Structures are given as structure tokens and as C-alpha cells.
């Protein structure tokens, strides 16, 4: 038969018989239709065994037809696109779909680990905590590896996810969650009122239960009515309908998270995260049916009655040849009616209630036997249900042959999202379950709010939609509620938990039985939270949808506490499991974070630049030339070139802040530790900032461009933090000071020109546009000038210790300026240098950088104690005087070199006295920065050494066990090259 051997000849609300589809399950080629789910196609192909449970590896079939499915978990796809643990009930069937079962070896029908079931007397709840302790050493070697081997259900690919993901922001007046009868009515009501509406439905078709039931609305089949409603909504410009949309969380201030999946074959992102901000929401997520707990209730072929109706009515797939019904509700009887109407055979109807109405009895198909006050002692069969052992109200036992049992145990409203933000649930005696309460932020409609009948659903949906639209300012006329077929729901009758010797499953996926719950209670885990954690009940991929309420009822029976006291008080996102990649979106791989590129980037890339991350920036580490054996050769060449000739380095990444206003000098005096008000116009001063707690925040320069105008620099790494800090000082601490702050890091491309021939380079480039003679433009001078029509600034500052300048131009001409500089530089025999050479030279000079200014050091630690002005208050001054910060024996900055000049050491080594046994007490400090100095021909380093200032000339060990090194080093002043600074002033 087309679409599978168990496919009915007619019917099926969503399948397209004109669109046959081929797919595979465990390698078997099977047929289905477009509009099937993988689950419905498996049912149509007569496949009952679809998976193995987690703990005991018991054979399992489909339990449900939707998001509640605990058993039918498959591995989808192949290669890197594998998606484990996927609920077959939520997979939209498409041509070429590849699926396989999980958690079994070697095959689904024969699974070696099913032996676990034989040991189930030992594997009771909480078993792990009591054992595997003897002998101690066995845990790590034997027990734990064994436990880990049996972990998990599906297997991940282990390969990078090849999918593309995206994110969308959306805003609306009304978000309707769920596109069943209540959701459709809510969206129609709010949409017709003119509100901006988003309707999100997890399924690929709108309609919810309307697709699975044989109801009538306005005289047409309910599935036809829902198609009509969907068409109207799709046509409204103010309504956005999201299908395949899983609303997974309700967050603060009306924000919701939704993952929308692409349709099969659709190009574009596999999934898109919608971040929806709404004025209010309508929760219309429906309810799911409860299984009945009895011995052997997990045999493949035993399903929820509502799922059976879905398979029969929506997908025209008959889940068995001889079907029985086990119900605790009136609605359950519809299942028998629908099966019979579809031409299926109902063998028996078992109702747990001792009496039912004559009208209900009249619904039963003629051939079906009826048992009232019935219970099932056992479900039988190995890989599929073959029979049930029934007891009726008079105690008569009987075995009935059946291959499919439909269970109707009442309903659990899906109200979890209503309490994501801390709302409350109320116990409804009418349906025997907790239901959420409506709030202005979230109105509950339909079965999610316990309105189980179709008429109630439609009416409550319309009411909620209208109210939400009105709250958003859209006046609306009341909406006519469509006439619907009568499906009056009788109040729920609680069924006492039947004791049985056989395993009666409450949580199917995690193999938690009624006995496990009783045992947990015996051991004191008698409240739901303890029970859940002790037994793993509700912790599976189905999030306990079919387990939670039965567990509460059993717990109530065992403990004697009323169910109302045991219901959940909180729920958290995600309401439905969502892929990690969907939350991450496009921020992956190279694009995990954006890159900042300086204007010279293309030049560097074309000239051998090798790049490194510096905060958000990419900077050249060095510029490799052909024939250079390794990076050290390159860096040595760059350093030597700067020290002997001239080099150019892009320093645009340093943070730059433009500060101006009448009070700017006063302000900077308070922000920096040293005086800035005394800097003459046209001069630059090195400055230090502390945090309020007295530790060093950052260092940089302040250049006074005018009486009331400064531009200050920060380190690359701290630019944002310093900006935030200075804004805090300006806006919060001293709003009375008239100071403007404008970040200009991106405005100015800035290049360092360093080396004895740097003046020659500038002379060649700038000619007489600016007088750069030592007298006219001495060390620490700054001047703005016109560079052939470009506004430029020249600073005479030096990080390398050489005669050096920095020239700044607007970044929009930065690339051209860098090329000009490099042309002139190369003509003089100079070169571009990268961050590595920059680092070597600053260590040679003993200048501190991020490894030293690491947030844990004081000005004195850095050898900069003199920069704390005694003449004024400044941020951090007060708390820098705390005893431990002012202590004399703190580790202080020193220089280090290997006693054997051929030796080497590395940053992160600790200082120990020669001969000392390593211990915390013997630890005297650590190396922060190390480089090979081509100028000196050996390694040099900076470090913090206890009492460092008084220990020059001592020998000490640089102890580096993680690198297997232990080097004798000599303590020297923290300046290796030109310690007098003579080269700066030439």
C-alpha cells in the first residue's frame, strides 16, 4: 500500500497522498507521505519497536505523537549533520530522510545491554550512592568507567556542525504561543483588532488537536476550519505566523525566546533564534495526555489514546490490528469511535471507573468488549505487545490478545511557561491537575488553562486574544465564537495507584517505576524535588511531560500528602530542548567575535604580516621576509633595525580620548595620580591611573593640545574599561566639572616611527611642513600640522627607548599615510615592526605592560611610586594607603638575566632561593615578561621579587616546573638598554 502497509485507504488531515516520500529507518527503505512525521510514517509501516530505554535497555515503542514523546528517540541524518535524541514525533518527514534507533547494540531487536533488566533488583533508585565504594581504588579504575560507558542515549557526530544559524529580533503587541483551537482564536481576535500579533506554533501545520480529532466547527471538519483560520492569519499584514517555532522561554520584560526551524529543503539557516519582545502573551500550549501506570505498561504498542487518534485521524495510520482502550476519562472513548470509523478493530474497552453513562457506552463499537472498574495486571509480549491481563470490577481475570493499547489517563496542562517568571499554579479538581493562572502579562487559554472542551478552548482563546489586543491599545468588538461539536468533558476521577509486582513505569525514558518512587519515599526523598533528583524522574529529553503528574499522584498515595501540596512551584526554560548552535547563531569560528582592523591591515597582510589578537584588534606580530628561518630571526631583525636605523609600527589600537572644557586640567588631576594641570600646551606627559581601590588601572599619555584641550591614550586592552571609568568620574563623581569626553580611537590612525634615523625619515617625508629639530620639537612635544591637506598630529614619545615619534592622521587616510611612511622607511633601510619586536624593546627598556599592570599591582610594585602626587587627591589615593598595599616587602619590579648568558627562562617562572625546597613560604615572586634581546644577545626578563628594590646583584632561581626548567638568574635593574634614556633626547 502506498505510504506504508498500515496506511488507511482514505483520510488523514495533513498528509499529501500525491507526494510520496522515501526514507530509511535502521537501513530499511520505507515509504511515507509529505505531511507525515517520522513517527506517523513508522506507524504506517507497522513498526512498533523504535528504541531502547536508558537504564534497562527495554524495548520501547512510540508513546505519544508530539513533544511529550519519551521513547521514540532517533538519530537523524549522517556524518557531521547527525542529530541524536530526536523525537520521531516532531520530525517532519521528507524525501531521503535517514534515521536510526539508538542505545542498542548490536541491533534494536537484540540488545546485549538488555541484560541490565535482569539486574534491576540491584539497580533500584539511588543504587549508585550506596555502592561502588569497595575497595576505594576500584571506583576510578573500574566502576566509573563502566558507568560512563553506559551513559547517554544517542551519539554525537563529534564533527563540527555544518548548519548555518541566524538570529532575528521582533516586537509585537501580542505573542500567541500555540496554534491549536485556543491559539488560533486568540490570534484571530487580536489580529482582527489590529494588534501586531506573532503566532508561534511548534508543528509544521496550524491546528493542534483540531488536526487529530474528528470535531466539527461551523459545520466543517475541525481540520478544515483550522486551515481556513490559518489562511486568514497568513493574509493579515499585522500578523506573523511562525510554524516549526518552538517557544522555549519567557524572560524578563516581555522577552521570549523562540527557535524557528527551516522546512525540509528550504535554503537558508537551519534554525533561527527569534528574540521576541511583546507587550503581552497568550499561552495556548494545550495539554498532554497522561499514561496509566500498570505492570508492563511500557510494551511497544502501548500508546496514549490521543496519540492513537492523531495517527488514525491526522495521518491515516493504524497503529495495530487488534486495538484495546484503557481509559480513565470519557474522552478516551472517542478513540474507540475513531478507530472503528477508520475501519480498525477495537477488541475491548477498559474503563477504570466502575460506572459510566449509558450515552458513553452507546459509543462503543459493537464488537468491542467492555470492562468497567477495570485494571491491567500486566502488559505482555517481548518486542511488541501481544496481550494484556485484565481484571474487572468483580475481580475476574482474563487475558486479551491485543497488539495496541490506547491509554487515556486524563490531562496535564502545559503551563510551564506561565511560571518561568515566578507565577503560580493552582490545583484544578475538575481536571485533577495544576493549571496556571492568567496575568496581564500572560493570559492562559484553552487546555493549557484547563479548558479541555473544544467550546471552552475556542471561547477562552478569543477572550484572551481580545484582552491582550485591548491592553495594547487596540479597541475591538467582541468576536463571534464558532459553533463546535459537543465534547463535554466530565470531571476527572482520580485512579488510586495500583500496586504491582511487575515494573510499572512512571518515567519511561529513565526507567523510573512506581516502586522506585515508593523506595525513594522510604529513604526520605519524599518531596518532588528530592524524588526527582534521587530517581532521575522527569530528567529525560521529554522533560517529564508524561511522568510528572503520575509521580505526584503516586507520591500523594505513598506519603498521604495531598497532591495540591506536591505540585511544582517553578519551571525554567527551555520549555522544549533547543540546539546549542541555535542559541549561538552566526557567531562561530573566525566570526565568534568581530575583529577590529587598523588602517594598515592590508599593507601588513601584503608584506608578510603574521597577525595576533590584541583585545578585539588584530595586530601584526611580525613581518616575515623570504629566507627567514623562524619567527625569532624575524623579530631579531626588526628589533635590530629599529635600534640601529628606523622602524614603523601601527599603534592605532591604543585607546584615545579627546577631553576638553574649562575644567579639563582639574579633572585630569583627579583621574591621574600625577599632575596634569602643569603640562604645558604642546607637551605630552606619561600618566598613571588607579582604580578606586588603589591598584593600578592603566597607564598612558596625556597630550595637551590647547589650554582646555587634551587627548589622552590608554592601553589597547583597557580602552573600554578606562573610557567607562573616566565617564563615571565625569558624570557621577564630578558632574560639576565642565568637561567633555569624546572617544577618538577610531578617528586617528597612529604610527610609531622609532630608531636613530626616525628624524631622517620624517624629514624626508615632511620636509619643512613642520620643524622637527630637537630644539623646536624636543622629547615629549606634540604639535598639530597640515600634511598636504590632511590634518595630522605629531608626538615625540617613545616606547622603544629610541628617538621616536608618533604621527596621527584621520583613519580614512590611514592606509595611504602608512604607505608613505613605509616607502620612506624602506628607502632608509628601515622596516615595519610588529607587536613582538615592540614587546622585546619595551622589556629591554623596562617599560611595564599588561603582564605587569594586571590589576593586582600597585604603583610602587611597578617602580612608579613617585608618580603618586602628594599635592592633590586623586582616584585611588585613599585606599592605596591601606596597610597591605603600602607594605614595604611587596614584590617589586626588577630585571632578570640568566647567570649563564646562554640559558633561557620564561614568563610565569617563580623565584626561589638557590637550594630552597619549593614551598609556598619559599616562593619569592614570579617572572612576568621575558624576551630574547638581540641587542644584548641573551634572554632578559622582568619580574616581581619580594623586596626587589634591595636585591640587585643577587642570584636566584627562575623555577618553572611546568616547563621543566630551573634557571639561575641575576637580579638587575629593570632597564637593560640605555638606562639613562640618553637616546630619547638626541
Amino acid at each position: 500500500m502506498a505510504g506504508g502497509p498500515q496506511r488507511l485507504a482514505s483520510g488523514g488531515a495533513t498528509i499529501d497522498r500525491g507526494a510520496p516520500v522515501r526514507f530509511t529507518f535502521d537501513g530499511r527503505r520505507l515509504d511515507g507521505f509529505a505531511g507525515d512525521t517520522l513517527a506517523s510514517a513508522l506507524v504506517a509501516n507497522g513498526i512498533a519497536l523504535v528504541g531502547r530505554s536508558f537504564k534497562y535497555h527495554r524495548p520501547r515503542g512510540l508513546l505519544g505523537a508530539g513533544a511529550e514523546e519519551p521513547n521514540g528517540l532517533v538519530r537523524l541524518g549522517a556524518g557531521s549533520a547527525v542529530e541524536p535524541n530526536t523525537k520521531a514525533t516532531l520530525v517532519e518527514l521528507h524525501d531521503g530522510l535517514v534515521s536510526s534507533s539508538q542505545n542498542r547494540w548490536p541491533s534494536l531487536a537484540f540488545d546485549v545491554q538488555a541484560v541490565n533488566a535482569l539486574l534491576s533488583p540491584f539497580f533500584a533508585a539511588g543504587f549508585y550512592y550506596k555502592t561502588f565504594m569497595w575497595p576505594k581504588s576500584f571506583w576510578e579504575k573500574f566502576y566509573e568507567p563502566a558507568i560512563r560507558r553506559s551513559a547517554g542515549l544517542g551519539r554525537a557526530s563529534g564533527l563540527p556542525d555544518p548548519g548555518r544559524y541566524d538570529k532575528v529580533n521582533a516586537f509585537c503587541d501580542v505573542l500567541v504561543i500555540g496554534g491549536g483551537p485556543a491559539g488560533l482564536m486568540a490570534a484571530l481576535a487580536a489580529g482582527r483588532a489590529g494588534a501586531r500579533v506573532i503566532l508561534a506554533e511548534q508543528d509544521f501545520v496550524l491546528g493542534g488537536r483540531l488536526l487529530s480529532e474528528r470535531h466539527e466547527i461551523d459545520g466543517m471538519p475541525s481540520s478544515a476550519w483550522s486551515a481556513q483560520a490559518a489562511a486568514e492569519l497568513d493574509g493579515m499584514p499585522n500578523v506573523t505566523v511562525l510554524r516549526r517555532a518552538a517557544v522555549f522561554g519567557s524572560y524578563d520584560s516581555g522577552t521570549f525566546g523562540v527557535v524557528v526551524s527551516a522546512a525540509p529543503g528550504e535554503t537558508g539557516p537551519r534554525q533561527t533564534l527569534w528574540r521576541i519582545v511583546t507587550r503581552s502573551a497568550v499561552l495556548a500550549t494545550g495539554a498532554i495526555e497522561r499514561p496509566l501506570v500498570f505492570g508492563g505498561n511500557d510494551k511497544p504498542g502501548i500508546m496514549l489514546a490521543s496519540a492513537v487518534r492523531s495517527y488514525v485521524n491526522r495521518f491515516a495510520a493504524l497503529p495495530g490490528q487488534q486495538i484495546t482502550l484503557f481509559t480513565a476519562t470519557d474522552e478516551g472513548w472517542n478513540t474507540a469511535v475513531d478507530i472503528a470509523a477508520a475501519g480498525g478493530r477495537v477488541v475491548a474497552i477498559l474503563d477504570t471507573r466502575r460506572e459510566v453513562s449509558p450515552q458513553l457506552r452507546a459509543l462503543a463499537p459493537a464488537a468491542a468488549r467492555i470492562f468497567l472498574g477495570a485494571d491491567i495486571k500486566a502488559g505482555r509480549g517481548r518486542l511488541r505487545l501481544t496481550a494484556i491481563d485484565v481484571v474487572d470490577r468483580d475481580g475476574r481475570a482474563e487475558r486479551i490478545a491485543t497488539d495496541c493499547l490506547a491509554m487515556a489517563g486524563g490531562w496535564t496542562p502545559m503551563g510551564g511557561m506561565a511560571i518561568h517568571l515566578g507565577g503560580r499554579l493552582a490545583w484544578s479538581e475538575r481536571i485533577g491537575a495544576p493549571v496556571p493562572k492568567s496575568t496581564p502579562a500572560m493570559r492562559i487559554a484553552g487546555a493549557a488553562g484547563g479548558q479541555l472542551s473544544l467550546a471552552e478552548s475556542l471561547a477562552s482563546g478569543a477572550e484572551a486574544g481580545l484582552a491582550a489586543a485591548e491592553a495594547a491599545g487596540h479597541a475591538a468588538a467582541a468576536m463571534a465564537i464558532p459553533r463546535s461539536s459537543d465534547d463535554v468533558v466530565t470531571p476527572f476521577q482520580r485512579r488510586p495507584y495500583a500496586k504491582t509486582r511487575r515494573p510499572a513505569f512512571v518515567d519511561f525514558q529513565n526507567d523510573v517505576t512506581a516502586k522506585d518512587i515508593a523506595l525513594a519515599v522510604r529513604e526520605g526523598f519524599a518531596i518532588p524535588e528530592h524524588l526527582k533528583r534521587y530517581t532521575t524522574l522527569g530528567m529525560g529529553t521529554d522533560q517529564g511531560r508524561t511522568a510528572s503528574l503520575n509521580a505526584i499522584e503516586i507520591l500523594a498515595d505513598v506519603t498521604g500528602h495531598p497532591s495540591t501540596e506536591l505540585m511544582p512551584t517553578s519551571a525554567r526554560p527551555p520549555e522544549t530542548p533547543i540546539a546549542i548552535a541555535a542559541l549561538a547563531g552566526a557567531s562561530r569560528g573566525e566570526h565568534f567575535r568581530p575583529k577590529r582592523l587598523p588602517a594598515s591591515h592590508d599593507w601588513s597582510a601584503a608584506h608578510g604580516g603574521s597577525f595576533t589578537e590584541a583585545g578585539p584588534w588584530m595586530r601584526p606580530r611580525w613581518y616575515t621576509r623570504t629566507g627567514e628561518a623562524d619567527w625569532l630571526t624575524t623579530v631579531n631583525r626588526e628589533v635590530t633595525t629599529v635600534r640601529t636605523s628606523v622602524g614603523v609600527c601601527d599603534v592605532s589600537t591604543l585607546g584615545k580620548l579627546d577631553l576638553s572644557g574649562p575644567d579639563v586640567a582639574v579633572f585630569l588631576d583627579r583621574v591621574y595620580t600625577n599632575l596634569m594641570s602643569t603640562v604645558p600646551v604642546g607637551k605630552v606627559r606619561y600618566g598613571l591611573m588607579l582604580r578606586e581601590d588603589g591598584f593600578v588601572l592603566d597607564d598612558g599619555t596625556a597630550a595637551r593640545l590647547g589650554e582646555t584641550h587634551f587627548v589622552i591614550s590608554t592601553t589597547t586592552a583597557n580602552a573600554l574599561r578606562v573610557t567607562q571609568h573616566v565617564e563615571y568620574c565625569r558624570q557621577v563623581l564630578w558632574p560639576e566639572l565642565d568637561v567633555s569626553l569624546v572617544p577618538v580611537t577610531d578617528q586617528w590612525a597612529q604610527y610609531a616611527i622609532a630608531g636613530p634615523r626616525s628624524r631622517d625619515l620624517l624629514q624626508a617625508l615632511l620636509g619643512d611642513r613642520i620643524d622637527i629639530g630637537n630644539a623646536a620639537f624636543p622629547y615629549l612635544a606634540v604639535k598639530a600640522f597640515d600634511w598636504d591637506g590632511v590634518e595630522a598630529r605629531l608626538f615625540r614619545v617613545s616606547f622603544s627607548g629610541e628617538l621616536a615619534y608618533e604621527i596621527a592622521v584621520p583613519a580614512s587616510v590611514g592606509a595611504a599615510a602608512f604607505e608613505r611612511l613605509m616607502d620612506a622607511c624602506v628607502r632608509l633601510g628601515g622596516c615595519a615592526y610588529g607587536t613582538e619586536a615592540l614587546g622585546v624593546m619595551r622589556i629591554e627598556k623596562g617599560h611595564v605592560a599588561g603582564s605587569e599592570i594586571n590589576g593586582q599591582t600597585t604603583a610602587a610594585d611597578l617602580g612608579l611610586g613617585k608618580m603618586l602626587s602628594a599635592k592633590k587627591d586623586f582616584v585611588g589615593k585613599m585606599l592605596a594607603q591601606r596597610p597591605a598595599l603600602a607594605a614595604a616587602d611587596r614584590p617589586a619590579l626588577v630585571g632578570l638575566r640568566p647567570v649563564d648568558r646562554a640559558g633561557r627562562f620564561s614568563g610565569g617562572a617563580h623565584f626561589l632561593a638557590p637550594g630552597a625546597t619549593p614551598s609556598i613560604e619559599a616562593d619569592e615572586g614570579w617572572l612576568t615578561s621575558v624576551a630574547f634581546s638581540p641587542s644584548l644577545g641573551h634572554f632578559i626578563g622582568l619580574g616581581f621579587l619580594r623586596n626587589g628594590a634591595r636585591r640587585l646583584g643577587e642570584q636566584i632561581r627562575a623555577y618553572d616546573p611546568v616547563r621543566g626548567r630551573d634557571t639561575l638568574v641575576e637580579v638587575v635593574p629593570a632597564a637593560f638598554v640605555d638606562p639613562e634614556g640618553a637616546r630619547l633626547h638626541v
Partner: protein
Amino acid sequence: MSDGWTRPAPAFPAFPPRPGLAVEEIVGRSIVTVVARAGQEAALRAVVETALGVLLPEGPRRVAGQEIAFIGIGPGKWLAIGLPVAALAPLADVAAIVDQSGAYGVLSLTGAGARRLLGRAVAIDLDDAAFGAGSVATTIIEHVGVTLVRTAATPPAYELYVVRSYARSLAHWLHETMG
């Protein structure tokens, strides 16, 4: 003496046109940050009106005159668009005037697709009622700070100001998202 090197370089790669969406870089536009001195906002407003013929917008709005537009980016802070920094000299007594022409790359996005594209990007309601012509928002797109301006209602037209160093990362994102 200028040999043409004063011409600003583009910040973005080119964007091939797509149906319903044109993305173009506006190169060489003058952009100046104007910050009112303490207590001088009213005075600044008066000077701007007399000298430039524009009413400074209150809040995050764009107001355009003949040659210049002002975009509100913070309390007492605007971007002045269109005139070089020298032309704003009359404002200097009551405001800080800082040239940022080199700092930004500017994109113009036009067409029905522009709103859809930007709607994916910014966590701001771009509905006509909430973000009509003249609206301004300084916010982020995929970790990159931007200032978004709605310049026209129909067809929807926007300008996007991004600091130059981030322009290529943002361009990558736009290319990816435009499909």
C-alpha cells in the same frame, strides 16, 4: 599641496545589489561630534539655529537642514553630518567640536529589504510607528556598536554609522545575512 591622497578610503567592501535592497557606502562624509558645554545646551541650540538654520533635535532624532544634519547620540551630544569641522567654528564657545570624519564608515540601506535586514540585526522595534523617518538609535549589531538612522519613510531608507575598524566584520555579517 594635495596630491589626491586626502581622498578618504572606503571602509567597506562593495555590496552587490539584491532585490528590494540597495546597500552603498557613503564615502567622504564630514562627521563631527558636537557636545554642549555644561549648562550651554540652550545656547548651543540658539547658535546652531542662527548659524546653521537647524533646530537641534531633542533626544535620539535626526534633523536635517540644507547642508547639515544633526543626529542625537546622547544627552547633549550630537553628530553633525555634512559640513567640515571648520564650518562649525561658531559653535566652539558653547560646545566641544571634535572631527570624527575619519572614524566612521557610513552605509546607506534602502528598500523594503533594508528594514527586514536591520530588523534581524538590532534589538530595537523598527516598526514605522516606533522608528519612523528621523529616528536614531545607537545600539549594537552582533557585538559591533552602530548608530542607526532612519532617513526616509518610503521606500524605507536608513544610514548606519560604524567605526571604521569594525567595518569589515560588520560587512561580513551583512553579506551573510543578506544571503
